[in-house]
């Protein structure tokens, strides 16, 4: 079967790969948006923390023999604690300053952590095999679906929409949204805002680490995997606008799919297509697709 002169199987598998990448974009931009909302910090280190998640999983398996499923829980916890440490010891002192200092600090953290991992593991990737339960593929009749990729999309969608549900529909989420609007007033109502800020950063970071563990079997675990991704995620955030949780998720997934399709129809453009879309969106709707005009 063919569609637009491309075999349907190739088209669908690129589409799925696009969805996989899109889920990573969605999870990372969601974390960036949640952190920016409450802390007013653009977390440049987000890509590095995603890399740390993948590396923690890899280290867990190859040094301690801890399997994928445990690491899927453990790695976000460990990296999330590391994030809390960053927030408590460094980021905390910058809230009263211009937003750029938060970006510069997390940029410095990125360079340092990436440099340390590069000096230990080099730039080449470490292979991480797909867990036994998800090996192989399912034949759906019209396409062969690799089980692991389907799992990645499913797991990240579940996590993304649970996050959306918690923030938009629960009491805890209401505190969070109120804190984003007016932290002083929320504090006056007796809510521990500094604790909320710390935990929010920890959660955003854990989300990035979770994405990292999911990514480990799909791409090779390498110290550079994060910084290459984070710049694309920045473009995703500019396109979607950081105002809306659902917007971040949809933009991330959508751009992943567009990128996947570009790889089929015009591969030369696949590395730059997200940036081109960003330029077009800036020309037509500067506030971003889901952003509010100020």
């Amino acid at each position, binding site marked *: 079967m063919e569609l637009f002169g491309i075999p349907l199987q190739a088209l669908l598998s690129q589409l799925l790969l696009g969805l996989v990448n899109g889920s990573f974009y969605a999870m990372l931009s969601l974390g960036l948006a949640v952190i*920016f909302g409450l802390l007013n910090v*653009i977390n440049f280190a987000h890509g590095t923390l995603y890399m740390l998640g993948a590396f923690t999983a890899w280290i867990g398996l190859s040094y301690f023999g801890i399997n994928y499923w445990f690491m899927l829980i453990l790695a976000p916890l460990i990296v999330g604690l590391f994030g809390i440490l960053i927030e408590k010891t*460094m980021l905390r*002192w*910058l809230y009263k*300053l211009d*937003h*750029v*200092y938060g*970006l*510069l*600090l997390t*940029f*410095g*953290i*990125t*360079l*340092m*952590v*990436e*440099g*340390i991992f*590069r*000096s230990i593991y080099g730039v080449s990737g470490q292979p991480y095999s797909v867990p036994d339960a998800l090996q192989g593929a399912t034949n759906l009749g019209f396409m062969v679906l690799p089980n692991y990729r389907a799992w990645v999309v499913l797991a990240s969608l579940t996590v993304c929409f649970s996050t959306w549900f918690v923030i938009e529909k629960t009491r805890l989420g209401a505190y969070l949204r109120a804190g984003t609007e007016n932290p002083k007033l929320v504090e006056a109502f007796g809510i521990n805002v500094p604790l909320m800020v710390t935990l929010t950063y920890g959660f955003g970071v854990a989300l990035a680490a979770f994405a990292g563990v999911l990514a480990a079997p799909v791409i090779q675990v390498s110290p550079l995997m994060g*910084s290459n991704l984070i*710049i*694309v995620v*920045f*473009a995703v*955030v*500019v396109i979607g606008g950081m105002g809306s949780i659902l917007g971040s998720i949809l933009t991330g997934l959508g751009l992943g799919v567009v990128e996947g399709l570009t790889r089929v129809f015009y591969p*030369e453009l696949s*590395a*730059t297509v997200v*940036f*081109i879309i*960003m*330029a077009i969106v*800036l*020309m037509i709707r*500067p*506030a971003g697709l889901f952003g509010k005009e100020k």
Partner: protein
Amino acid sequence: MNNSTNKKIAYGVLLILALAAPFGLYPVFLMKMLCFALFACAFNLLIGYTGLLSFGHAAFFGGAGYVAGQALQAWGLPTEVGLLLGTAAGALIGLVMGLLAIRRQGIYFTMITLALAQMLYFVALQAPFTGGEDGLQGIPRGHLLGFIDLSNDLTMYYVVLAIVIAAFALIVRIIHSPFGQVLKAIKENEPRAISLGYDIDRYKLLAFVLSAALTGLAGSTKALVLGFETLTDVHWTMSGLVVLMTLVGGLGTTVGPIVGAVIIVMLENKLGDIGNWLASVTHIDWFSTLGDSVTIVTGFIFIVCVLSFRRGIVGEILHLFKRSSTAAH
């Protein structure tokens, strides 16, 4: 002694140091330092005087280097035309990037410049004339104005010095012009500047293009000096490096970026030696590998500067002077 004589003495000392330097130090290393000093000064024009943080300056620096290299090597154009074309390329990329980026404020501005610069990186990686991973090799220095032979390192050094001083004088002139005052007003209080009737987007764009053009001049001069141009110059780490230089020297001070550039370039070159020395003093072997891990050290300096040293070296000195002079009154 008043402020302006102080300044004149400082500039005089800097000039004498710059003129005498090639007799004590390797000229190519010094020229590289000068190019980065100009790069940092051009960057400072934007962050220090307009308050816009660009994370995309590598695009102008490397992009201009590629254009100048292509003009000199493949088209065989005269040296001065190559430099001018490189500068124009920087300005043009700056115009396009600026038009898009000033549509958003604050942190979004920074993210947009970073993303667009990354796009240019991928273009440089794939385009046929940049040489991809290998880069552009064997860029000829040629003769300046047809009769000054630049293959001699010492001659080349004084030409580069003249270019950098001229560009620096231009930057100082821009800062102190009425235009520069409006930029400062935008940095201090944007809504106020708007209410005074200034079309701030036009001012921002012009500042962005000027900064990009001067960065282009620095990039093409560097390509001419070293004779090659590689992907390193268009990579985002280069954008980060120039931020660091300016931050270490002092944001919004005239000579700060020069000091910062000298320190960071020196550090990058001498880190191996420093590491070996530390290893021999402390007997911790790990230090001897420091030369291979420049990013760890630059990252560390970034963190220290942002947390506790935001005025930078020159900014801190000026602050001390100001405090002692107010105490004397």
